[in-house]
């Protein structure tokens, strides 16, 4: 650690990291484009200029991202010289920028826009025509490049080289003719392409899936955890007014995913807004499954527990630790066998983030005492028991939708899933909230606890799993075995 003076305040700075890292860590925003904590600093945008005084040497303006800290260094970010240097830098960056903020998806979270408001001038000096380049170049299925907006910070180039481990982008051309290109015009590949849209400080690299979908200031952002694998990347779930999830982005979490996430997780929101939701509850009557109230459905389930013996509970790996704990208590009260259905490896495992295990809370559920079982084992348990209760989103699909529909065992199925199961053996089914609609805790493969948060409300008539389980347990307590006749 090195002591330096930053804007008149003594701070400790890591001597192995550049000056800008110390400033950012201490809450002093130094405008920057090419610098990113997760990438090698290149010092090319020249935006992070600050004034530095060392010993007897006269004050000088330096790029904070390429300046090492030294003991006793005095740093001022807001002197006239530093501000002028950054203002001049913006003048150059904006010279050929199209200023099409009105139709740019990045507007509202664009660093060029933000710093121009904060430090730039309202009128540019340039009388030259702006450079005309390709405004919509597809770089594959995920990313679209607008070359006119690009400020050539090379973050995206370095991301593929340093994080993904394989160079996929490069700067082609020289000087004012430089553009970002893929090698030989090939499409981007791999499961991490979406990250470059987050990294891009301007609107040059955007997600095709987010193109013209929402203005970012209309998005409500909730910190949550990705449910696509057992890594449990920290994410921000971003919801538009009507409750549609428009985007999922990684959140910085030092112990888990740092700044990144894979595209499998990023685009999981397309599944989170799935159609065909089971809204409300259904109970089997004389003419098949009939709509009923949730309390009627739960009463029927409790009755089922009381009049039958030999129960099986199958938990979804998406259940939270809190839900898991409730389910364990309920299983004990009923005397049921409880297993978490464990799907096969996704085949998406890589050396970066994705673990290939699609169960976000395997570890958390194991910690509360729920053992895992493969889908065939779960199916066998279900068909062999008198009642089988399937709890949590995607549980039916994981055990096997078709196998459950076709099974000719005698067991009654009580289903608590997001989607309906249309099968003869279903006695009761209740719609439950998905992982973007409820709150709780997941524990990732390394034992790191992270919160999931309701980013939007569940459809009308759909209840949270935990509430359902609580109600069910209360009912089970009142309906002791044998107290209800068949």
């Amino acid at each position: 650690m090195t002591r330096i003076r930053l804007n008149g305040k003594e701070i400790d700075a890591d001597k192995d990291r550049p000056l800008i890292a110390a400033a950012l860590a201490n809450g002093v925003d130094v405008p920057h484009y090419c610098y990113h904590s997760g990438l090698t600093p290149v010092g090319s945008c020249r935006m992070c200029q600050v004034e530095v005084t060392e010993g007897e040497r006269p004050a000088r303006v330096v790029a904070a991202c390429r300046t090492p800290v030294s003991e006793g260094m005095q740093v001022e970010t807001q002197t006239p010289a530093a501000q002028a240097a950054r203002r001049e830098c913006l003048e150059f960056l904006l010279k050929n920028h199209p200023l099409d903020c009105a139709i740019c998806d990045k507007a509202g979270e664009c660093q060029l826009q933000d710093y121009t408001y904060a430090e730039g001038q309202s009128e540019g000096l340039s009388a030259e025509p702006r450079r005309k380049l390709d405004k919509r170049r597809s770089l594959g299925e995920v990313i679209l490049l607008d070359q006119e907006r690009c400020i050539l910070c090379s973050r995206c180039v370095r991301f593929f080289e340093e994080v993904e481990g394989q160079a996929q982008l490069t700067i082609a051309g020289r000087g004012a003719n430089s553009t970002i290109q893929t090698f030989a015009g090939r499409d981007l590949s791999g499961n991490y392409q979406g990250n470059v849209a987050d990294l891009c400080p301007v609107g040059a690299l955007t997600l095709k899936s987010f193109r013209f979908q929402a203005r970012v200031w209309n998005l409500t952002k909730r910190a949550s955890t990705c449910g696509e694998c057992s890594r449990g990347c920290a994410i921000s779930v971003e919801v538009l007014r009507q409750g549609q999830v428009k985007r999922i982005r990684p959140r910085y979490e030092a112990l888990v995913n740092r700044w990144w996430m894979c595209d499998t997780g990023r685009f999981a929101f397309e599944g989170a807004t799935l159609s065909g939701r089971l809204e409300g509850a259904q109970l089997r009557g004389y003419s098949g499954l009939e709509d009923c109230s949730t309390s009627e459905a739960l009463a029927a389930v409790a009755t089922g527990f009381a009049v039958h013996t030999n129960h099986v509970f199958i938990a979804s790996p998406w259940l939270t630790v809190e839900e898991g704990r409730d389910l364990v208590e309920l299983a004990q009260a009923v005397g049921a066998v409880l297993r978490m259905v464990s799907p096969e490896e996704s085949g998406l495992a890589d050396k970066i983030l994705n673990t290939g295990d699609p169960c976000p809370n395997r570890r958390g559920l194991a910690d509360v005492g729920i053992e895992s079982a493969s889908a065939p084992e779960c199916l066998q348990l279900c068909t062999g028991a008198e009642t089988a209760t399937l709890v949590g989103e995607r549980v039916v699909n994981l055990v096997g939708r078709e196998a459950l529909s076709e099974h000719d065992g005698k067991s009654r199925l009580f289903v608590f899933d997001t989607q309906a199961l249309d099968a003869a053996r279903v006695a009761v089914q209740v719609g439950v909230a998905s992982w973007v609609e409820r709150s709780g805790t997941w524990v990732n493969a390394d034992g790191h606890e992270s919160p999931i948060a309701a980013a939007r409300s569940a459809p009308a008539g759909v209840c949270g799993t935990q509430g359902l389980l609580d109600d069910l347990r209360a009912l089970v307590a009142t309906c002791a075995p044998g107290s209800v006749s068949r």
Partner: protein
Amino acid sequence: MSAPELYLLERAGREGSETLSVYHGSGGYKALEKVLKTPLTQAEVISEVREAGLRGRGGAGFPTGLKWSFMPDHEKDSRKRYMVVNADESEPGTCKDRVLMREDPHGLIEGCLIAAFAMRIDAVYIYVRGEYRKPYNRLQAAIDEARAAGLVGDAIMGSEFSCEIHMHKGAGAYICGEETGLMESLEGKRGHPRPKPPFPAGVGLWGQPTTVNNVESIFNVPFIIDRGATWFARLGSEESRGNFLCGISGHVERPGVYEVPLGTPAREILEDYAGGIWKGRSLKAWFPGGSSTGLLPPDLIDTPMEHDSIKAIGSMFGTGAMIILDETACTVRASEVLARFYDHESCGQCSQCREGTEWLHQIFRRIEEGGGSMEDIANLERLAMGMAPGKTICALADAAAIPTLAVIKHFKNELVAHVEQGCCPLKANTARAQEVRV
């Protein structure tokens, strides 16, 4: 004109000057022999070069011996180390290294070997400008010849010192003459200059300690070792010692590369060496050391050509390549041509340089074509101030900004005349003259 002592071009132009036999015949490889057979220690060689006061001839004028001493102590740092000779001579107006490599390649090889010995280096890379085919071929032939004679490779002259010299051909980018851009290029990457620190002596070629020297700097070394630091220190001026190769071009009677003691007044070089302004015309403007140094007006032509004096009048000694413009030349047109060069050669990393060099070019072109405004002149100055000094990774932005500021400082009248007359006054005069003649 008194006859100064010459050594740099002693052999140049002689029949077979590029061959080992002629080089040997005129005392070649004597300095290397002195180093290896005496034997001198590494520290002795470095201190001899330091005492001589040799300043780098590549443009910055940094003391060569001091640069060598920045290499890490070999006992504390056992990493592999390299020496790179910058022969990517691309500065407009500069053509001195070409002469040395073409006419006296063994002189460079001997210098490389002595420098490599002093810094405990066993691999030297010579990065030659791609267009220099003949110098490249001659240098390569000389290396082969020297290797056959046991002067390059293992156990040189039977000593414990081994050193290999590799050649590399540039591909035509000016920016690869910047030392860190050169190293990137040598590593097979795009020639993007690296931010400093770290400096090459710590993290250079392939991340190893590296020293980068100019051809002419290295060429001086055998003479210093052979004839001694005191001999060298007698030549030139107090602060800039030795002779230098002045490539003088432009509107002069005898353009060419001349060996001149440092400190010789620019007027003497112009008049006595280059035969004065051609066609009996008068001097309008001159660049002291290549296109990146600020344009100067005629009244400063008596300034001694050496680093500190030229710096004192607001320009730079650079590579010592004087470019002379006569009275018929338009400084705005000259600035436009230079701005186009820097626009074309900017690597594009730094915002100011990428956009600024293009911008300067656009404005100069507009003014020269007669469409400029007073606002354009003000903007030229603002832009140049925004680009330099030291605001970018390397000095290319400075190189574009310095001549711009210089032309505004010394030749603003001409810029204003372009704006007011709506055309280039010199072209207008010619046109009017033709009209009158008709």
